[in-house]
């Protein structure tokens, strides 16, 4: 009983504190929720680099969607880097380029696969725009993303702008679960931008100031999470990373459990290793990022793992006794539970003093998710996703973290970025 109380109290205290902190940050910055006008920066040349490795099935769709973007054609440069694909990706890319020669398209080709970071760097060398965007080969961007994001660059301190990253066509359990997760992330990312604490510029789609790469070098091979490395580098040099909460970008997320697991192991392991490399961020000089957000990230992981494990332990006992009961009386006994027994059980559960804190935690997270939905103007149905999220996310999150750290540390396996992004 004591352990249960401690877990619920600490988890909810932490959750409530973070939610209140985010809410205060939101209130403080509510005028900044909207994107700044594009102004003088609009019309500057933007180079979009698309690294591609064995994406023959989807690359054309991505490219056809890209050219629909609302930006002057002559100021848009499209650089597609085929990173040694062994399928017909290069052929499809060249077909696209020749069919759309009214656009400025450059096609680069690596004979051998060099990795995503190097592919983008090849693109950077040939990029002539003042701004450079990286786009994943399977991502769909809304027409207005550049218009919405570019205005932030009016501030010369801004080196990167991140979008409102969401899930493409969320159908089925895992995708809907991720849908809720991403929508929560959309809101959190905007709040982090107010605190100048964004720690990843999503490879799915982000826009950078080219001057940054010219001065500080391009992408580095960093544990297959180059987008985290770049963001931490920008933060360390004390530049700003902004976010547009309604510049909608849709990523094709993993549908199968094994793919999702691989992706998350890569993300979390990469996150830890990159943060370790940039350890010096943990000094007071670096503001909210160092003082609160990175430690909070680690605390939340630990608390989630503890509570998920304990919940499983409690439920294991319940499941075990239910199984024993069923074997004694046969499956039909489920229909013969007395209503008074059920009433007492529910009553006992609902009137446990801890339930107040459970409700508070749920309400605060629900609030964050709904804010994300509102500000990103995501009109898709989120109710199923939210339900799946509340019942199961803690378990998945804990599992991904433990699996990521344990598996990757033990085996030091390299995961190919092309097949399982």
């Amino acid at each position: 009983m004591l352990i249960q109380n401690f877990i619920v109290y600490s988890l909810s205290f932490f959750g409530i504190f973070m939610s209140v902190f985010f809410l205060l940050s939101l209130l403080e910055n509510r005028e900044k929720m909207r994107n700044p006008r594009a102004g003088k920066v609009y019309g500057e040349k933007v180079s979009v680099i698309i690294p591609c490795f064995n994406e023959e099935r989807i690359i054309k769709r991505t490219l056809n969607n890209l050219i629909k973007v609302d930006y002057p054609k002559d100021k848009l440069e499209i650089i597609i880097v085929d990173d040694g694909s062994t399928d017909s990706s290069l052929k499809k890319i060249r077909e696209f380029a020749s069919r759309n020669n009214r656009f400025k398209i450059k096609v680069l080709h690596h004979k051998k696969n060099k990795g995503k970071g190097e592919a983008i760097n090849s693109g950077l060398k040939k990029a002539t725009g003042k701004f450079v965007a990286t786009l994943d080969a399977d991502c769909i961007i809304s027409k207005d993303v550049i218009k919405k994001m570019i205005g932030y660059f009016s501030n010369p301190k801004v080196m990167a702008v991140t979008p409102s990253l969401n899930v493409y066509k969320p159908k089925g359990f895992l995708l809907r679960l991720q849908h809720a997760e991403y929508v929560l992330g959309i809101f959190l990312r905007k709040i982090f931008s107010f605190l100048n604490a964004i720690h990843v510029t999503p490879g799915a789609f982000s826009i950078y100031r080219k001057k940054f790469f010219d001065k500080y070098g391009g992408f580095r091979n960093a544990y297959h999470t180059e987008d985290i490395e770049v963001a931490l580098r920008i933060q360390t040099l004390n530049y700003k990373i902004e976010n547009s909460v309604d510049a909608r970008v849709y990523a094709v997320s993993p549908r199968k459990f094994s793919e999702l697991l691989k992706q998350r192991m890569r993300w979390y392991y990469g996150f830890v290793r990159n943060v370790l490399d940039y350890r010096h961020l943990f000094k007071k000089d670096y503001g909210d990022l160092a003082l609160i957000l990175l430690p909070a990230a680690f605390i939340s992981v630990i608390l989630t793992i503890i509570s998920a494990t304990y919940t499983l332990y409690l439920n294991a006992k319940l499941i075990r006794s239910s199984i024993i009961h069923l074997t004694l009386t046969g499956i039909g006994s489920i229909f013969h539970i007395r209503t008074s027994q059920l009433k007492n059980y529910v009553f006992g559960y609902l009137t446990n003093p801890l339930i107040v804190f459970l409700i508070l935690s749920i309400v605060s997270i629900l609030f964050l998710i709904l804010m994300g939905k509102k500000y990103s103007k995501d009109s898709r149905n989120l109710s199923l996703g939210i339900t799946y999220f509340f019942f199961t996310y803690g378990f998945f999150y804990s599992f991904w973290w433990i699996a990521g750290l344990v598996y990757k540390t033990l085996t030091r396996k390299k995961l190919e970025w092309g097949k399982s992004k």
Partner: protein
Amino acid sequence: MKEKRRIDYNKYIAALAITIIIFVVGILIGYSISSYKIKNISFIENQVSLQLMELELQGEIFKENPCKSSIMLDSLSQKLDDLGDKIAYMESELGKTNKRVLEIKRPYTLLQIRHYLLTKKRREICDENYSVILFFYSNKKQNIEECENQGYILDFLKEKNPGKIKVYAIDSDLDLEIIKTLEENYGIKEIPSLIINGEKYEGFYSLKEIKDILKLDF
């Protein structure tokens, strides 16, 4: 571009203060819920004493007209079940060895035994077609799992055949003379044990075995 970032300490303090306030309010609400539950339990205690007195009177009336008093016995049966559920709830909230729980279980057990005797007698005299089961159980470590399982089976039987099977579960660990008397009377040496329509069955009995004994055909 090396600019020192400012940390807004006031915001952290405000967030901490608000969180503490919310937390304290939450604990207060939790506390009032707990005291509500304790009041609920006192209410149950009063009900049991009342029921016991009622049953005394019923017993007297029964002696006059045994086969006509079915309605009263049946409604009391219902109340007994309700009380049994409430006591089970108390056990889950306060624990099976809690003093208050044991204090209520004693008059409740007397109530049960009284009802058992009346029901059994009525079955014999008025030629009714229900079965009466007296179930001796214990919450001691070595018996508790078997007894819980046995109890679960009996509950199920009762639900499946409403009105046809009457179960009286007696906690043999309670400090009551009447329980020892009953055990002696039936020759009970093992826990769990069942007295089905006056016949002794010691040890754990599965669903099928009990169904065979009662000659049930569902």
